């Protein structure tokens, strides 16, 4: 039976896990780097241990130090969150060897799914559809390739077996263009890699990224919690996720869910996991990879199914049976998550570092904020740029979008550039509203340039000018040695507050 959980992470996910521990009555133990002494996870946990300098390689990635802390404080379980050590099979084994409970999937499942080639073979055996193609290792003649192309169907990609970086790659729309494409791809591959072998793979047009959440226990029970739509991405990083997906109906959900469950059973999976798929415009789906951990976007699934995934992970890790059967899982309402990053969307997503000198967080009906920041916190270059996740639940997708826009407008972070303005414009975009997007949408079909209305611009001008004017007056008064009107005003406000 678990009593004390060490959380081997930081930021919003550490806070998320500590909350689950507290609801279950477990003590939570935080570990922290020198940069995170004042971070929320450190202050929220019952115990906190410093494990090293700011660099993650010297702190949050030091599995040895973390296990040492677990032994010292008597933590009986370790939850890795996501990122850092979450998909490190060696660390999972070390935790188990130290006689602590690993709150995650079995190490062999982590290792198998981490090897993409082995994972694809395993998935194919379990009956999971893969992107059709001839396979990378093939040594096929031109005639064999032409014959295989008919089976794969067009459009397709000719790829160099030794390739990478787009060299020796051709996108072919129709059969008559294939011989030329194979010839030029071979020539390019020979010149670039000294190897003219090429292979074919179906080109998935207008692909959407859809994933299925899985939960499994140690007793062989596996269920799925429906899908998440994660097609709003840039540089292959997800920015907005939602559940359900605007293009997945009940029939497709059950089909994808059943395959994900079968695949998880094939690798004796337990704990939480996610099967990622691409969905083409004819609603055919193909396996991409499996993430053997808690996922950043898990809250949208929690919102629409009512299942607390982190608490389930803790229960499963202590050997208990799943509390749900597949028929208990109903998707109700619509949830959307926006990742609030310290990045300047107007400046090519340039990371933004600095101190948060003002913070207003959104609240109200249907709003959930999973955050790792506070008023006064310093965003450093040592860790990723995610500040918080804003999640909303609406009765319908339309209500969820309007609610998200309202919550984004309430959310003010001062001192840094964030992705909040971009998210607002995405919520305003008619194509997003209509659910018409794929993984290329943000980079190719969306422009971040809606102009604010002139009335708002005027308010901003007046507000800034009033502050500048006060500064001027203050400078004059300061020169004369009297207290500034701002200071007097602040005192009066403080007195008022006390009297109220």
């Amino acid at each position, binding site marked *: 039976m678990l009593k004390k959980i060490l959380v081997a992470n930081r930021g919003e996910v550490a806070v998320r896990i500590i909350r689950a521990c507290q609801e279950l009555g477990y003590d939570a133990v935080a570990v922290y780097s020198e940069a995170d002494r004042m971070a929320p996870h450190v202050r929220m946990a019952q115990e906190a241990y410093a494990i090293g300098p700011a660099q993650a390689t010297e702190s949050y990635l030091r599995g040895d130090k973390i296990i040492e802390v677990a032994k010292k404080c008597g933590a009986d379980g370790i939850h890795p969150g996501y990122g850092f050590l979450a998909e490190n099979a060696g660390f999972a084994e070390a935790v188990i060897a130290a006689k602590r409970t690993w709150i995650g999937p079995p190490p062999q499942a982590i290792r198998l799914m981490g090897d993409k080639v082995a994972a694809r073979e395993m998935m194919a055996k379990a009956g999971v559809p893969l992107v059709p193609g001839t396979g990378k290792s093939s040594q096929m003649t031109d005639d064999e390739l032409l014959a295989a192309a008919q089976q794969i169907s067009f459009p397709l990609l000719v790829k160099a077996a030794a390739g990478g970086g787009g060299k020796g790659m051709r996108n072919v729309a129709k059969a008559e263009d294939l011989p030329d494409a194979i010839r030029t791809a071979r020539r390019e591959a020979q010149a670039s890699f000294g190897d003219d072998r090429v292979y074919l793979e179906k080109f998935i047009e207008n692909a959407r990224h859809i994933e299925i959440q899985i939960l499994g226990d140690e007793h062989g029970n596996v269920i799925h919690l429906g899908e998440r739509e994660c097609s709003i991405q840039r540089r292959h990083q997800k920015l907005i996720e939602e559940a359900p997906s605007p293009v997945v109906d009940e029939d497709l959900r059950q089909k994808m869910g059943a395959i994900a469950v079968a695949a998880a059973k094939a690798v004796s999976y337990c704990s939480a996991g996610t099967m990622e798929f691409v969905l083409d415009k004819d609603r055919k789906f193909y396996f991409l990879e499996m993430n053997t951990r808690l996922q950043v976007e898990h809250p949208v699934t929690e919102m629409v199914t009512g299942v607390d995934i982190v608490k389930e992970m803790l229960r499963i890790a202590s050997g208990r049976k799943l509390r749900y059967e597949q028929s208990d899982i109903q998707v109700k309402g619509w949830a959307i998550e926006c990742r609030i990053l310290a990045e300047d969307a*107007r*400046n*090519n*997503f*340039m*990371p*933004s*570092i600095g101190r948060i*000198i*003002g913070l*207003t967080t959104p609240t109200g009906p249907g709003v959930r904020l999973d955050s790792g920041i506070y*008023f006064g916190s310093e965003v450093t*270059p040592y860790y990723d740029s995610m500040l918080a996740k804003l999640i909303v639940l609406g009765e319908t997708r339309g209500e969820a979008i309007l609610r998200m*826009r309202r919550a*984004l*407008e309430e*959310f*003010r972070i*001062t*001192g840094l*550039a964030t992705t*909040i*303005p971009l998210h*607002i414009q995405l919520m305003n975009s008619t194509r997003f509203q209509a659910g018409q997007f794929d993984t290329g949408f943000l980079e190719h079909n969306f422009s971040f340039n809606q102009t*604010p209305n*002139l009335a*708002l*611009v*005027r*308010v*901003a*001008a*007046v*507000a*800034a*000018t*009033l*502050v*500048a*004017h006060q500064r*001027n007056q203050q400078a004059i008064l300061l020169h004369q040695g009297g207290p500034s009107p*701002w200071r007097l*005003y*602040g005192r009066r*406000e*403080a007195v008022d*507050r006390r009297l109220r």
Partner: protein
Amino acid sequence: MKYITTIGNEQFTIDINHEGQVTLNGEIIDAEMRQMLDTTMYSIIIDNKSHDVRMNEGDGVYIVQLDGEIFEVVVEDERTRRLAGLKSGPGVVTGEAIIKAPMPGVVVGIPVKQGQEVKQGDIVVILESMKMQNEFKAPRDGTVHVIRVAPGDKVEQNAIMLTIA
């Protein structure tokens, strides 16, 4: 006191008299603003329209957050403008736009030349930091005035890389 306030390519003339009465582009408006104890937070009511504003100042630019929008506002008072000896006439955007490095990095490209005219949004400096190439754009139309760095230069945080006049 009279102020020239600039947001992007919009310019406002704002006068605030001794009684605190505000005139915007020649029109008297009823503007009242209060600062909260949380000092970057303000409540402003203009002609009975209420707005919550978050504002901070950096390098003479006010960053104003309003209804999810973010505005970079430059406020100049008339005296300072005159002292700066700017020759441009009224209605012309003035004041130098300064492109600084927000974090340490290495300059990998400067696609403009000194004296070159640029439009708002044109890329003027490319800086590599945190393993990413970051493009810096001209915040407004103007002329490249000073280039202080060259490709390959290492720059410190807040180093001035380029100015646009």
